[in-house]
């Protein structure tokens, strides 16, 4: 049996309700957009195989599943994130203002080992709309003030910058993974229902 263990990157998307988190995910994965607001039913996470820096990486993008709507995201959601995508709606100044608290919330809940260098990527979504309220300059300034987070202006509707943004997300998340991690001596964490864990000394399938 082949022991497959590709790098898996967990990316979580945060931001106020209806800034387009699920739509961005859908646009990136399925190249689709639906105008209907569905409060993210069925949206869980998406996986996509990407090649970054000569490596095949499975990127797992996690949606909030609507639990952010009444400030009820549990700490479990934040566990083990390799990258955090902060999304706001360029037509909603409030959603931009809240980025600060989303970022803080992430740092508290996920408590990454190196908070100063944790990879965040900021997306200003809905640039296809006419009634823009947050200027690019203002957004860029804020991103610079927070350890120079990469910033992209996207449209989940027409796909502007979506591909590029997620490429950056993958690359930054991967860069975080140091070589030390690859050779650690810790016993591996177990995911249920994956074959690779399930191969303890079966003497009948000898592979020597």
């Amino acid at each position, binding site marked *: 049996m082949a022991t497959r263990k590709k790098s898996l990157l967990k990316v979580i998307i945060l931001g106020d309700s209806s800034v387009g988190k699920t739509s961005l995910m*859908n646009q990136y*994965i*399925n*190249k*689709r957009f*639906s105008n209907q607001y569905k*409060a993210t*039913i*069925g*949206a*869980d*996470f*998406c*996986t*996509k*195989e*990407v*090649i970054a820096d000569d490596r095949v990486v499975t990127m797992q993008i996690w949606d909030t*599943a*609507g*639990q952010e*709507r*009444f*400030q*009820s995201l*549990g*700490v*479990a*959601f934040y*566990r*083990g994130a390799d990258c955090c995508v902060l999304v706001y709606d360029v037509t909603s100044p409030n959603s931009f203002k809240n980025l600060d608290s989303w970022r803080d919330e992430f740092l*508290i809940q996920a*408590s990454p080992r190196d908070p100063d260098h944790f990879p965040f990527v900021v997306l200003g979504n809905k640039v296809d709309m006419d009634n823009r309220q947050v200027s690019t300059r203002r957004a860029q300034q804020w991103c610079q003030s927070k350890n120079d987070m990469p910033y992209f202006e996207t449209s989940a509707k027409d796909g502007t910058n979506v591909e590029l943004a997620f490429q950056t997300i993958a690359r930054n998340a991967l860069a975080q993974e140091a070589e030390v991690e690859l050779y650690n*001596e*810790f*016993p591996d*964490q*177990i*995911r*249920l*229902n994956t074959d690779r*864990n*399930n191969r*303890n*000394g079966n003497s009948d399938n000898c592979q020597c």
Partner: protein
Amino acid sequence: MSDDLPDKFDLIVIGTGFPESCVAAAASRIGKTVLHIDPNEYYGGVWASFNLESFCALLEQGGNKELRNASQKWHVAETLKVAEAESDTVAGETNIKTDAAKQNVLDWSRETLLQQSRRFNLDLSPKILYSAGRLVQLLVSSNICRYAEFRAVDHVCTRFQNNIINVPCSRSDVFNTKDLNIVEKRLLMKFLTLCMTYGEDKTDEDALQFRGKTFREYLQEQKVTEKISICVMQAIAMCNDDTSFEEGMARTQQFLNSLGRYGNTPFLFPMYGCGEIPQCFCRLCAVFGGIYCLKRQIDDINIEADTNIASVVLEGKTIKAQHVVSAPGHLPNAFLQRNVGVYGQAELVNSLSRGIFLSATPLGSEELNSGGGGVNLLRLLAGTQEAILIQLSHFSGTCPKGVFLFHITTTAQSDQPAQDLAPFVSQVFNPDDENAPKLLYSAYFTIMGRERTSATPNVDVSTTIFCTSTPYYELDYDKSIISAREIFAKLYADAEFLPRAPDPEEIVIEGEDPRALSENSLPDDLREQLRELENSAENMDIEDTDAAQAGECTQEDAETQNMDAD
């Protein structure tokens, strides 16, 4: 905020503990509209995990309805003394010495521990999962397992002649243990193999011979030594002298069936603590449209006499629901005073006596804690009472490196958890024993549970309100799952309980032809490659001779087949 909420749901669930979350997820999964509320600002209720600071605060305020009789004690100084703090920074050889002696009580103070508060996940109701047990099966069959990660329990231990020894349960354990000689090893392996196959043949002589006898009597009949007998009784079958042969055998089989699946023992512990488990169920509920509101108080619940529909008053707003499922402690007083029939409701009484202990050193020998300390399980006995001790190291994501976390749980005998636990605590943290871990912090509390009464008054088939169960004294979640299923079956008689949730790739997006395959589902590079190269490849096809092409195809197809195995 509550104004955004719809005013009608199929089900309102109050409390986000394990059984409530189970029911909420199951209802949402079959398409019911669910509103899931918790008066607390955190998930899990009495099943939650806390960071050190919030845990101390919770005990400080004296607990809540479900957690009482709280007390806590710091065994270390408020802050590190300056001299000691500085000793770490002395350069050169002395520094190496300090590192070696790092696992020392003096290295920690209340302040330094609280600085790492977020590295702690202290469970109110810690559990250990059988790798093939009911919860693991449920997580796998429902596909909720994708939301959690686990750590294999490193060792199952038992006390033998005042020492804590490793119970050799896996083949490699038996091979490595120095506690058994080779004949004993063979006997133990043979006994375990026998138990594995036991019952396959219904006419098994033993089955007839030992019917009605105890498991202990059965063990005595087997040619095993005292040591093996103790290991089997205490740690494998986890039974006592009165346990029947059938039950002891069933438990041994449960243990053995869970072996060899993940780690070296049959047990798993959830990474970051058991508080994660209810949240996994809640996520599933949310993914299927369940709405989550933490930190909301329920003012009252009214039942419409003719329709039996419940009106839940949530911070002034009335929301209607077909059914309400609530954790026992969360039903509003106004409602309770009206004495309406609630399925499963009972007085809250002392149920579990709990102790949480922090130490800078692990319990037991170096062998039991190789590689920086293990996640170990130890069942303790004192007279006719028993307790479960779980040792957790930082590998479990529940405490910082250099600290060991111990959970001890026993059935409550009184409203004084410290007193209930004293006979067990003295076995492992005896201050006179220099090998025993020295405590940094200790806390005691009582988990309240429903009084076991035979029937709840005023309950009939039309009952709208259901009360869930509190944590049981059990290793795994078996009884809690059974009781959650029972409520679900009362709500939705013929519906399937948590059928497998599809993986994201399996879901058909609205308006999509389910058979269609867009280029988008191909990996990026393949897609680009395809687009880029299609033209040039077409040109080349013309150049190539047909024969060469045909010959290559089969091999290529085979290779692509492999490629497809991705």
